[in-house]
């Protein structure tokens, strides 16, 4: 192999071809509104836990859609279920309920 002076890490690329979205479809079944997220970030901006921890609901939703739940699921443990994100979501998603459903489907 020629040494280009850097290494390729396979995990840096999103492997969309063989995306396994069974769990996400399961989530969509019980929480159809998850598909409405337009990634505006209002939930994250208003989240009290997000100011001090890695919790970022917009990122969690995106990572589930991309089959990369391992990147963010852990952060949901900081959620206090305060429901502030619920109040601001412009797409009217019941985010608090969504969080509970995520925990159920993804077993956390």
């Amino acid at each position, binding site marked *: 192999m020629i040494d280009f002076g850097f290494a390729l890490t396979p995990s840096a690329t999103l492997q969309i071809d063989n995306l396994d979205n069974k769990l996400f479809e399961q989530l969509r079944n019980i929480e159809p509104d998850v598909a409405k997220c337009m990634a505006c970030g209002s939930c994250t*901006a208003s989240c009290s836990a997000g100011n001090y921890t890695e919790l970022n609901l917009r990122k969690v939703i995106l990572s589930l859609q991309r089959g990369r739940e391992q990147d963010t699921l852990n952060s949901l443990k900081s959620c206090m279920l305060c429901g502030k994100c619920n109040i601001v979501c412009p797409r009217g998603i019941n985010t608090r309920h969504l969080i509970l459903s995520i925990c159920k489907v993804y077993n956390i």
Partner: protein
Amino acid sequence: MKENVVIIGGGPSGIEAARRIRNFGYTPILIEKELRLGGHLAQWDRLFPEGVYAKEVLQTLLSDMDGIKWFTDVQILTINRLKDTYVIKLTNGISVQSKAVLITTGFQLFQAEKKEEYGYGIYNHVITNADLERYFQNRKDSRIDDPKVIGFVHCVGSRDEKAGNRQCSKVCCATAVKQACEIKQLYPDATVYCFYMDLRMFGRRYEDMYLEAQQKYGIRFIRGRVSEVSENHEGRLVVKAEDTLFGRPLRLSMDLLVLMSGIVSSHQSQELAKMIKLPVGEDGFFLPQNTILEPCKSQKQGIFFAGACTGPKTIPESLSEARAAAVAINDYFNTMTE
């Protein structure tokens, strides 16, 4: 005898339609509820994308009103249909008859105070896009006091189920970018931010405007919706959003915040819809017969639409539709006499 055509709404769409309908040989009767003609065009200073003065556009439109009857400060009291004629009673006591009625009632701006979390009417340095246009026209507004940091909030009352408006208002991204450059011209030392979710620069030369905003004016674009605004002890505004491209919550203090109030269906249009029993969409705007093939025809014989009363539109789009409505009305009269 020349046929009358009643046109309800004296904004750019109504004025242009009146001129074209007159050119076809009819007598347009233009009805405007406000004290002057011009609609929203009269409230704007310069227009995107080239910065043409709205005043000049309006003057050109109004320079050629021969043969058009128009009333201001007048509203529709009743509309009744007798055979193929509409009998329209006006609030000034006059009654007119016409076989074709053109609705050009336009839109109304979303009332920014309804988004309480943005503090319009609560904090002194929060204004709207319409307030800023007025400031550009006359340079008077005590809320704009040599600002050093200025923010523009896109999608205020648009794309927002909580505000009851799911639709995109179409013109406010271009307006925000235009106004950001203009305020930078007035206050070259200020730092200017635009908080957007998607930048809808759909028209020709709009993307150039965006590029110019970045390159020439150094406008800082942050992809994230503002979630709330508060005031700190110094009286400065504190804005919260997520920088979604960076993936972190963000907090920023500012001296002026401009809310991009959206385009919503006007309550006068809704009253008119009830009066004539015309269907409106979920968004409250009038529903044409066919949005692709017949955008100017209503679902009722003899009633036509043009401009922003059927949804957010730019001025050139509204004017084109006004001309198309004139053609549709002329066709309508021609098929009646056949």
